[in-house]
């Protein structure tokens, strides 16, 4: 199993820190299917962007991201210290083609196997899991 833990703050950190973490995992795990990787990357970046853009807090938001890759799945757990987001994480329809926003959660749901949100004491816990495609080799 390959694991990475990343701590970041918003503001000022950007999604680039998450891209760098993902790249370091994929460098180590050449066995992971390219499509699985792209789908997981896209879902996780949407999740982190959502927190960076929409989370509210009177203080800087501290985030802890744990990413794991094993033989069966790719998994990320993001814990942030923002206020409860007050969003509906139920099934989202994909907005129409000419919408300029509102696709983030629909993308996450379409790209991963499990997307969960939980409010814990003092923070929000977001989990995404993408089952790996059966190996073709």
């Amino acid at each position: 199993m390959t694991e990475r833990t990343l701590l970041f703050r918003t503001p000022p950190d950007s999604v680039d820190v998450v891209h760098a973490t993902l790249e370091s995992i994929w460098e180590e795990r050449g066995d992971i299917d390219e499509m699985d990787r792209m789908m997981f990357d896209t879902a996780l970046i949407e999740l982190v962007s959502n927190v960076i853009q929409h989370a509210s807090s009177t203080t800087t938001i501290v985030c802890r991201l744990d990413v794991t890759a094993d033989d069966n799945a790719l998994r990320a757990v993001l814990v942030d210290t923002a206020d409860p987001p007050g969003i509906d994480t139920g099934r989202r329809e994909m907005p129409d083609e000419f919408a300029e926003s509102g696709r983030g959660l629909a993308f996450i749901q379409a790209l991963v196997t499990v997307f969960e949100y939980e409010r814990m004491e003092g923070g929000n816990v977001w989990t995404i899991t993408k089952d790996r495609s059966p190996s073709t080799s």
Partner: protein
Amino acid sequence: MTFTTEKIEPDIAIIRGDEKLNMVTAPELRESVRRSISGGNARIVVDLSAITFMDSSGLGALVGCLKSARQAGGDLRIAAPSKQVTMVLQLSNLDRVLAKFDTPYDAYHD
């Protein structure tokens, strides 16, 4: 990232970016397209060949730019999207709306 603009015909401009088209760089694309349209180049092709990653913010910017270009009597087309960008376009059904070409120079040969 900075987007560059190359005028190839009287009213056609190629706009190129690199690396990521995301919440950080999407406003830069919108600004480049706005400048191109106000400068009289409303037929735009966004060269995506060097864009390695696009998220929903980047996609939203492309949609906004497409609408602006059409309102100005032009269009916005795309060239050479990567696999990840193609996946995002398909997921959002934008692949049905944005005309795609192998190179930016092919985009308005119709």
